[in-house]
């Protein structure tokens, strides 16, 4: 029995629809399995002791599962790297979108893309063999593998994200706005600072949130250059152990479905929730303050 053309077309449409759902299904499965493997740890420690405990000694006897130092390390690394990456990324975006000639842009844009494509393990390796000895010598430190090193390396991983998303936002500022400002006698720079940037602020905020989400979840760089000490950072040169590096470094030695294993999945939950929050805020900002013509300003 042959299907009618219409029935066949409907069937195919539904097949495509089911495939399109695969991303949501994957996201849901990720959440489910993180919780299935992570929640059992809370039979051993309470949620507050887990989140705010200051000691992370998962292999001692008795073990201590306090991830506060890891959370603080992640936040510190992310904050410091953002402090470097946000100005660098936004200024590069302004340069590419507003100032550079077409020819210059054709050279710089691929460079930013290639920077984004560098594997994180290579950046981490570079931080280990080049930046760490340099920092150690210049600042006379016990180790060059520390928060500062990790922050610099992470900054170069989030700059491309921040740059390309901000650039799109700056591009989408309506021409009329810029022309009006220029016609009133403002210089090009004044127009950028007082018209273009405020008009693209929501897009730039999205860029910043995405960049921070990339930095907080990045694993190999912090695993290789952050130093690995599970202590609350006291200076920018403290060796630290952010959440992703704890998971990556300890999973191999954790007994299958032991407390340590469950604790590492629970760290995964915390990390996942952090990045989810960053991304939801980013898409919320992008959705709510979408620039639609000059009228929405």
């Amino acid at each position, binding site marked *: 029995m042959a299907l009618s053309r219409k029935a066949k077309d409907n069937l195919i449409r539904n097949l495509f629809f089911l495939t399109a759902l695969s991303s949501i299904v994957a996201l849901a499965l990720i959440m489910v399995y*993180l919780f299935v493997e992570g929640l059992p740890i809370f039979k051993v420690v309470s949620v507050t002791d887990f989140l705010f405990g200051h000691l992370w000694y998962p292999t001692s006897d008795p073990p201590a599962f306090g991830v506060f130092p890891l959370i603080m390390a992640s936040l510190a690394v992310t904050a410091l790297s953002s402090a470097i990456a946000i100005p660098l990324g936004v200024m590069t975006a302004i340069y590419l979108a507003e100032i550079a000639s077409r020819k210059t842009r054709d050279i710089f844009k691929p460079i930013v893309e290639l920077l984004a494509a560098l594997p994180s393990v290579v950046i981490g390796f570079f931080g280990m063999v080049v930046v760490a000895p340099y920092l150690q010598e210049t600042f006379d430190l016990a180790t060059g593998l520390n928060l500062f090193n990790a922050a610099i390396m992470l900054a170069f991983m989030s700059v491309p994200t921040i740059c390309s998303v901000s650039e799109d936002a700056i591009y989408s500022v309506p021409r009329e706005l810029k022309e009006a400002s220029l016609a009133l006698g403002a210089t090009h720079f004044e127009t950028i600072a007082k018209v273009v940037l405020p008009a693209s602020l929501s897009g730039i905020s999205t860029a910043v949130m995405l960049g921070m989400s990339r930095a907080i979840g990045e694993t*190999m760089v912090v695993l290789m250059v952050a130093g690995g000490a599970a202590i609350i950072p006291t200076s920018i040169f403290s060796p630290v152990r952010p959440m992703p590096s704890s998971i990556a470094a300890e999973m191999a030695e954790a007994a299958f479905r032991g407390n340590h294993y469950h604790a590492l999945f629970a760290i995964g939950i915390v990390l996942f929730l952090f990045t989810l929050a960053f991304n939801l805020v980013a898409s919320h900002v992008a959705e709510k303050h979408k620039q639609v013509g000059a009228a929405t300003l």
Partner: protein
Amino acid sequence: MNANAITHAGLARRHRTQKLMWGVFGLSSLINMAALVLICGFLLIKGLPAISWSFLTEMPRDSMTAGGILPCILGTIYLSLGTMCVAFPLGVASAVYLNEYARPGRTLRLIRLGINNLAGVPSVVFGLFGLAFFVTFFGLGVSLLSGILTLSILVLPVIIGTAEEALKSVPQTYREASLGLGATKWQTIRLVVLPAAMPGMLTGAILGLSRVAGETAAIMFTAAVFFTPYLPTHLNDSVMALPYHIYVLATAGTDIDKTRPLQYGTALVLIILVLGMNLGAILYRAKLQKKR
């Protein structure tokens, strides 16, 4: 008097400010370029002496302190190509739904939210998921197949994004002409839209391929091992991979300083592979845009 009033001195000052800021903006772009050149240049200088034909085609020897990296190269190629076999059809089909069939509304917003958030999940979390789901729940073990499936989910948003771009760039008139000739929607998509969008989609596939080739955290619990004496022949085999090999040699190898040349060599092979694919995709895309 207002400092910004239009006087000659005021105007000159404002233009000086502009010049200064142009310099600052240009400098920040140069810093990015410098970072890329520095990293690549350093690895090129340090890694080139380590690379030889035997480095690329031999097995590691003497507990990985000598010999080549053939199993890592093969492992990375198998992982990346395998991932594309799974992720490319899934991603393209998702993009076709989003761009050709879906109407604005709640379902579409939900799907987009899912894709955006999937793109933001840290790679180590993909690793955890792969460990819990593919390795343990499905009992696939630490294997090529577990790695491929984990990486497929990781790279899916990239493929969907680029495939959608490609579909968007197909002129609406193509579709109208085909539908006007009496073709069904599916015939239009299969015979008109997809062929026109294919070059753009392949660019996306190459970008996805390079992303997968450099991925470490997602495979360290699912597919990669320190060392295996055999080349992978089966989807159930665990594999060695370039990124993981660099990490292992640089942090946990038997003699970290002695194997430095091997580390530089491996890192160089990896970035040549990854940046080469990217550069190819960028140039190809530029050519496509010129044609349009």
